[in-house]
């Protein structure tokens, strides 16, 4: 029986999810024994036609990481979907839109103007911009379309499973492979991680009081944080209560609060709204003025509560931005 073919691909990605596959260290050998990695752009050369040449469903599984921002990424996602038996959204960007999706707070024009004109390091007096089609010397090179909206993978193609994390931890990847190879998989659309919040495996849980009442909120740079006490008890926002566990509370161990990269549990439709609800309900003040003063400690609610999940939030995007149809 020939070894099942596996593909890794990356779209709007920072490369972290590629890194984490390598972090499997020697376990990667165990993986390589059982599967045949046929596509891994960061590690191996590849051509479109090689992928296109594959028969539909020839790939046993594709782990696709990174959000979808350009037309080429959409094409590859669609192609790999057709070629793979299991298409897996690997990492927060593919699952929820990730950090790139924070750009959904800005229009395409704002993004392009900043990057190609207003950024301090840019000198572009005649406002040149990358063109999708360009005629020159008989040749018409073209670039992928830069979409107005950043999307998660399942907003473009049908996805079988999700592996959360920014990046997913090695043991999560290993468990995913074992599940795929052994065939005992949860129902389609499941997230391959425990369905309980992070606090369950966080060492600081014991120090969180049962009567937390926030009198103020501070941000990481504003104080030296006790390395044993629950961050929320110290008045620092930690997304742990609203985020899946599975990472072994890596950030809290590194004395940094959880920022919510594993996404919500299956019972929650909007991770940001849920954390907002839980956090604000426990604010100490009862009068409007007092409440406002305490909440001033959260200057950027969207960035705090939707750091990874804006694309998959119920509103998906800042609603009054110009839409794709009228082009600008």
């Amino acid at each position, binding site marked *: 029986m020939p070894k099942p073919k596996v593909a890794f691909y990356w779209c709007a990605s920072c490369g972290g999810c590629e890194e984490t596959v390598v972090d499997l260290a020697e376990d990667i050998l165990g993986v390589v024994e059982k599967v045949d990695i046929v596509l891994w752009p960061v590690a191996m050369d590849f051509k479109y036609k090689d992928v296109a040449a594959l028969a539909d469903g020839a790939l046993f599984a594709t782990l696709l990481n990174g959000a979808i921002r350009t037309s080429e990424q959409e094409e590859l996602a669609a192609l790999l979907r057709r070629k793979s038996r299991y298409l897996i959204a690997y990492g927060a960007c593919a699952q929820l839109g990730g950090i790139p999706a924070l750009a959904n707070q800005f229009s395409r024009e704002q993004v392009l103007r900043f990057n190609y004109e207003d950024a301090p390091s840019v000198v572009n007096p005649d406002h040149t911009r990358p063109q999708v089609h360009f005629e020159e010397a008989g040749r018409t090179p073209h670039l992928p379309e830069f979409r107005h909206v950043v999307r998660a993978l399942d907003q473009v193609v049908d996805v079988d499973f999700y592996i959360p994390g920014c990046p997913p931890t090695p043991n999560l990847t290993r468990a995913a492979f074992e599940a795929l190879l052994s065939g005992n998989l949860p129902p389609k659309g499941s997230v391959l991680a425990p369905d309980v919040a992070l606090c369950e495996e966080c060492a600081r849980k014991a120090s969180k009081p049962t009567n937390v009442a926030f009198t103020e909120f501070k941000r990481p740079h504003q104080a030296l944080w006790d390395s044993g006490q629950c961050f929320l008890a110290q008045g620092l926002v930690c997304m742990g209560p609203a985020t899946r566990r599975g990472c072994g509370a890596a950030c809290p161990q590194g004395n940094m609060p959880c920022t919510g990269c594993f996404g919500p549990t299956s019972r929650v439709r909007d991770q940001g709204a*849920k954390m907002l609800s*839980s956090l604000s309900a426990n604010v100490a003040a009862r009068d409007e003025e007092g409440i406002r003063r305490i909440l001033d400690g959260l200057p950027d609610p969207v960035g705090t509560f939707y750091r990874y999940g804006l694309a998959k939030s119920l509103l998906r995007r800042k609603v009054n931005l110009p839409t794709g149809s009228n082009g600008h």
Partner: protein
Amino acid sequence: MKATRDEVRIGFYVCHCGHNIAALVDCPAVARYVGTLPGVVLSRDYKYMCSDPGQELIQQDIREHRLNRVVVASCSPLLHEHTFRSAVEAGGLNPFYFHMVNIREHDSWVHTDRILATEKAKALARAAIERVAHHKPLEIKKVPIHPDVLVVGGGIAGIHAALTLANAGKKVYLVEREPSIGGHMARFDKTFPTLDCAACILTPKMSEVGSHPNITLWTYSEVVKVDGYVGNYTVQVKRKARYIHEDLCTGCQDCIANCVYKEPKFADEFNEGLGKRKPVFIPFPQATPQVVLIDPEVCLNFKRNKNPDGTPVVSDKCKKTCVEACGERGAIDFTQKDELREIRVGTIIVCTGFQTFDARRVPAYGYGIYPNVYTALEIERLVNASGPTGGEVVLRGPKNPDGTPRKPRSIGIIHCVGSRDKKTNLWCSRVCCMYSMKLAHLLKEHTGAEIYNFYIDIRTPGKGYEEFYNKLLEEGTHFIRGRVGEVTDWAMTPEEEGKLVIRVEDTLAGVVRRIPVDMVVLATGLEPRADAAEVRRLFNMSCGGDGWFLERHPKLAPVNTFTDGVFLAGCCQGPKDIPDTVAQAGAAAAEALALIDRGYVEQEPNTAHILDNECSGCKSCIPLCPYTAILFDETRQKAYINEALCKGCGTCVGSCPSGSIVQNLFEDEEIFSEIRGVLAYD
């Protein structure tokens, strides 16, 4: 597992409610529309769903069409949800596989456009159809009722309620803030319309309360905290220090006789300050319990300054002749402190009464400026044989040449003082016309003076009231119809010299009149007590715009409140006379007895529970519960809810960051589906 779409067999009924709904909502169209929705196997419109045939129709359909869900679109669930649930149960289906749609109070009665109202009805119905598919079978929870009852307030309402319950064999705690029970009624001389003496009909009931084995009487005490829920209230009562041991004092009043103060010197609250009392005193002769108390504000054995926490400081400077007089009974104890007592009861009856309108708030009538302007309550004390003047109605100010106090030869009684007035209280206080006429009769009897009653409308709504009014007319009382403008001592003519002139527009005669009188009586109205807001929050009650405690339904549930197990009686719910107060007291007692005898109360099974294997133990929900129903299990490192304490508000469910708490009947899925439904605009 949630019932998937195909297993759900929904029966939908839209009610015409006669014309109430059908007048604006096209019921057949709604029925047709809902008939097309997935899961709906039966969709009817019917004239009166809440009628017996309507309910039988449901039961029949359940059996015939094997329905496992029922939705009725008619009036407010607060009105008939219970009726239809019972019908569904009678049809053999779990009553919670039912959901109700309000298309009357929230649709046909409040809108005018037929098309839009019908469209709204369709959407609301669709919301219910989508919601009911997610409903789960639930069981009504039965909560045992503690048989003891707390009655708050010892006026005639509290007394009657306590006696009714005690005579039914229930154990009653009667808590009264004043040193004695009796309330306002104990201060009245006679009562209208029969003119029987207030003390004669009240004192026997008071002593019956004082000696009843089933009644624990705590006077000079206040409720400070109420916890728990219907059937299981824990109440903390603060017993203020009397500096007298109640069980040792026999009421002989030797201590009063031997007090260092030979003569009573201090204003006596019971007589509205007209009489005087000593630092050690008994409020009034028939006080129950027959026990004295010491006022630390004026007793020489106490310092004038207070401890930081407000409690009096014993100076021990007095010869304490009172202690000597008490002798071996040793009832006096200056070291007594306020004490907190805790009791467990199943039901509570609140009858905290009213306060009279402060006449100073209408300076035009001169109360507090002219000495011979009295309030009605002051007159009740003056004409009372046990009052400060032994029933003699005399004028303040200059005496007769022979030194005897002057008697009034003409008296003006002004109705509606503070009532029916935009600047003060808008409502009619219901009793002032009757007690003004009673006082007119008594004053005539005591002084033979000419009596003038100034009224806007004479209101005699009770039994024998109109006859009493005719009796007053026959006695020659002058009734002048007009809102009195002013009481002044400015005399325009010689016969007005030295008198109080009442200026009024006599609307029947059509002329402004000046009527000089010796004495003016202000029939002040009734208003909620100054601390009504704190008291009602103790018992989780709300109040109407006017400040009176709010009953569950003005017509159909006048003694119930929105909190199960807490009942109202008497004037705390609105101005009323003694017959209505006693009737309400009886009704409240009956409501309490009904709960106690049934032994349990049904609680809506909408409590919340935490999904055990999904809770991360993040403790975010624990501080949210005002009933401390959410606890943290240290061993399993997870939170759990004590469903006996949970009241089903759902606040923790809305906040749980990992969605691990579920509220029966209001699950997230059910509400999301309802949102989807109401936003269906075809």
